[in-house]
């Protein structure tokens, strides 16, 4: 391999690098060839001594990406470090898999914590005026009607849709009461008829107390959970960067 072939391979293997950085690397190796030629070696001898340009490019990329990550800790830069180390073959598959499992568990945990937070926020928001009465009509195919009225910790909810008839749901400080209209159907499709009434005392809390507890628990718990997630993420990323550096330093000097 002569100087031209070496530099061409190096240049093409360094694809994606900003031009100024690419030019700097090429200038480095041009200087090396100049000094080598001046000391009486041939281009072939020098490029043989330098080794495989594709492998050199991978090491340079890994070093540059790690540096970019250290100066700007963005997900994109971390991704580049990951890719560069994978290209070097220095990311151990057995350690990469638990890493991926951790990442997906963490993602699920994020989603759940945001869910809890949202429930809390919604429960809290129901205290605000405008949320106490919800009336929803749908006169389209679904034939649904949904009316909610709330006052002084009591709530009346009337729902009707094409399938289940009408349901009246009453909540008060002492529990809840459900009244179904008679058009429930049994397995054979016959109308079973008659009212049935469910009386439940579920919480022992008044509605507003229960809602308050949900709001506080949801917002507090959700925020705390989210915070724990962020901390775990930070630890994971730190650990990963350490591990990536270790991988790379093992590779150095080969």
């Amino acid at each position: 391999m002569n100087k031209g072939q070496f530099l061409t391979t190096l240049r093409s293997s360094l694809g994606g690098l900003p031009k100024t950085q690419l030019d700097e690397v090429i200038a480095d190796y041009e200087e090396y060839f100049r000094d080598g030629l001046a000391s009486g070696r041939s281009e072939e001898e020098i490029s043989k001594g330098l080794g495989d340009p594709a492998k050199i490019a991978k090491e340079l990329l890994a070093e540059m990406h790690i540096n970019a990550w250290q100066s700007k800790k963005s997900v994109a830069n971390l991704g580049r470090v990951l890719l560069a180390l994978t290209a070097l073959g220095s990311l151990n598959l057995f350690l990469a898999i638990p890493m991926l499992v951790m990442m997906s568990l963490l993602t699920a945990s994020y989603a759940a914590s945001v869910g809890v937070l949202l429930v809390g926020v919604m429960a809290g928001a129901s205290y605000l005026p405008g949320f106490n009465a919800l009336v929803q009509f749908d006169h389209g195919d679904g034939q649904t009607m949904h009316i909610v009225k709330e006052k002084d910790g009591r709530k009346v909810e009337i729902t009707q849709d094409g399938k289940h008839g009408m349901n009246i749901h009453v909540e008060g400080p002492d529990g809840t009461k459900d009244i179904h209209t008679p058009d429930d159907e049994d397995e054979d499709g016959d109308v079973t008829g008659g009212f049935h009434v469910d009386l439940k005392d579920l919480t022992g809390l008044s509605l507003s107390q229960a809602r308050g507890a949900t709001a506080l628990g949801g917002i507090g718990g959700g925020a705390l959970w989210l915070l724990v997630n962020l901390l775990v993420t930070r630890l994971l990323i730190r650990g990963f960067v350490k591990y990536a550096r270790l991988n790379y330093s093992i590779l150095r000097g080969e």
Partner: protein
Amino acid sequence: MSAQLKKGTLEMCVLAVLEHADGYAYDIVSKLAHGVDMSEGTIYPLMRRLQNDALVTTYLAESEQGPPRKYYRLTASGRNELAKMKAEWRDFVGEVNKILGEDHE
């Protein structure tokens, strides 16, 4: 010299070469190549790493061979790091020599 030992010591050797005089890449490699069987092409990734860790800095200086050369200079923290590495190396070699030397004692 085995590959594992070589990897760990190469960085220290480069810093040691730069301890008394600044150098350019070809010069550093020539000084190392006699004793350390290294792939010359890795000098630049290695120098870049040392630069990233702020152990060396670079500057351009005129040369007889056309365009200016890139010189590497040890920084203060590079000197500290080298001193630390040397101490660790001597401890390590001392321990190993003790074990290897058991035959003679």
